[in-house]
Structures are given as C-alpha cells and as structure tokens.
C-alpha cells in the first residue's frame, strides 16, 4: 500500500490564507513598494544645472529692507505683449538672465540722446541708474522678492555715444553704484563690460543687460 509521503514541515511554504494575515496585506506591500520607488525616482537629480559657486556668507533677507531704506522708487516693470519675441527675464538653474533694459524715467518716458553730445556724462550716468531701477523692478516681479538675488554676476552696459567718446565706464557706474548700494560690495560687484555703441533702440542714451545669481 503506497501512502503519500507526509510533506516536510520545514520545506513547504505556508500559503498566506492559512495564516491569520490581513488579505489586503500583499496589495498594501505592493503599493508601499511602488510609492518608495516613485519617491526615489523623484529624488534623482535631473540633468546637471549650471552652478555658479560663490563663497559669500549666507544670504540675510535685507535686500528688500535696503531698497526701502534707500527710498528707491522702482518703476512699474514692463511687460512684452502676447506677440512678443522676447521675455524680460529668463531663469535657468540658479541664474537669471535679464534682457537689455533701455533708459527710462520713472514715469516711463524714454531718456534719449547720445552721451557726450546731447547729454553730459552726469546725465548719462543718471540714465544708467534708471536702467538699474527698471532691472530691479523686473527681477522683483519675476522672483517675488529681491531677497532671492544672491549676487550680480555679469553686466553689459552699452552707451549711445559718438566716436571718440571714452567715458563709458563712468556712465555705466550709474548702474553699478546702484547695485553696490542695494546688494553691498560682496554681492553687488560683478564682472562687467562698459562699451560704446553706434545707436540704441529709440535713440535711448543707455541700455543695460545683466546676469544675476539667484536662489532657485
């Protein structure tokens, strides 16, 4: 008489239904595993972002306070229309690229003329300062607060001037000194080119574009 061999107690795994387990447990375990996998995937870094390393001290939120202290009047930021081919600021990683801003008074009226011809260096310097105020206004609109700006990285200052004019750096100092006032020496001093150009849109006196490092 052949008998079925008794199954070894140690070898055969016990099916779940024979244990007092919650039948939903396998489904829960699968969900938990999927959730962990999703979180791990989300934590993986995407393609490397451009990083500008800086050794300045941690950022206190004083920039906005400084703007208030200096009683600066920032103009209303301009907004390109819907058919525009440009945008005023592009944020890429921790860098904010600001489009060229032309010199305007706070009421929006353009500051025109060639520096060293119709305008003096002092007037040109003031025009450059106005570009700075407009750029601060644009940055504040884009970022929500100027406290998100870590530092000025790179400036291109363009002065509408006749051939032979040499004082472009003094003119663009109007912009750069404003940056120093607002951001301080460590953060407000960036790389810079101050150049003369043959003409500018609408014959404005000065146009400035700049790159800032920001808190992403």
């Amino acid at each position, binding site marked *: 008489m052949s008998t079925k061999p008794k199954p070894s107690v140690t070898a055969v795994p016990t099916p779940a239904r024979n244990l007092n387990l919650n039948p939903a447990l396998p489904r829960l375990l699968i969900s938990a595993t999927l959730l962990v996998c999703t979180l791990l995937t989300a934590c993986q870094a995407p*393609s*490397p*972002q*451009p*990083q500008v390393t800086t050794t300045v001290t941690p950022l206190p939120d004083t920039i906005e306070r400084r703007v208030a202290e200096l009683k600066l009047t920032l103009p209303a930021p301009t907004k390109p229309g819907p058919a*525009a*081919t*440009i*945008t*005023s*600021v*592009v944020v*890429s*990683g921790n860098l904010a*690229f*600001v*489009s*060229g801003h032309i010199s305007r008074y706070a009421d929006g009226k353009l500051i025109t003329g060639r520096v060293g011809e119709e305008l003096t260096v002092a007037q040109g310097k003031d025009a450059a300062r106005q570009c700075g105020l407009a750029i601060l206004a644009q940055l504040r609109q884009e970022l929500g607060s100027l406290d998100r700006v870590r530092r000025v990285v790179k400036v*291109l200052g*363009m002065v509408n001037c006749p*051939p032979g004019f040499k004082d472009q750096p003094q003119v663009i100092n109007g912009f750069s000194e404003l940056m120093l006032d607002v951001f301080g020496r460590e953060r407000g001093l960036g790389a810079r080119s101050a150049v003369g*150009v*043959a*003409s*500018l*849109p*609408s*014959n404005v006196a000065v*146009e400035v*574009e700049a790159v800032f490092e920001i808190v992403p």
Partner: protein
Amino acid sequence: MSAEARIAELKLELPAAPKPAHVYKPVVIAGNMCYVSGHGPLKTDKTMITGVVGKDLNLEQGQAAARQVGLAILATVRNELGSLDRVKRLVKTLGMVNTAADFYDHPKVINGFSELMRDVFGDDAGVGARSAVGMGPLPGNIAVEVECIFELR
C-alpha cells in the same frame, strides 16, 4: 512638435555650419548651457549679407539678414549636438545690427531672428531674454550679428 520636425515642416534651408576663421569655437557647451559665438547672415551659397541697415539695406532686408543669422546658428548647433531636439530652450540673445546713426528700429530687425526661434522651438522654449542694439561696423560689414545661449536637455 519637436524642433527637427518643425524645421522639416517649415521647409527651412539651413546653410552649411560655418567654420571658425579666427581664435574661437563656434559653440561651447558648459554643463547644460550652450554658448553660441556671434554668427553673421550666412547664406547657403556661403556668402554673407552685408551693408548698413538704414543706409544700404531697409528694415525688411535687415530682418531677412537677422533671420539668415538664425538659420546659420541652427546649422552650427545641429552640427555640434547632432539634433536640435536636444535644445531645451533659448535663454538669451544679443542681436547686433550694423546701423546708420539715425536708425532706431533694432528690435524690429532682430525680430527676424527671434521669430524664427519662436517658429522652430515654440512660444515658450523659443522666446528668451534679449538685447537688440546698434553697432558701428561689424566684421566684414555684415548687416547683422547675433550671439545666443541655449539650455540643453
């Protein structure tokens, strides 16, 4: 729609990617940023569009020159990357127009470049920060020179 598909759809004719004549590279990739050197309005017959806008060339001709610069830049970037689909977005443009002293419509001229970028890369990825300015003489008396920065995938 991908950039390469748009180029095919628009039937754009890109010139051959220009070779550097002096001590520079046409394009440098740093991290995921693609810095493009200044390009001139290079045509498929390998000649450049020259002349002073506002004197030798009118606004429309200036815009056509700016658009041609865009085609040359697309050629260079495609040559470097293998495919323009690797471009995530146009970040920053510097458009320089060879202008007469009393010509002030630089933004309109450079729109020739910017509208091409918008057509190829879309309303969001194709529109970036920009400065459009007038310059004294440009190399070889070309009508327009543009340098720009793209972000890559």
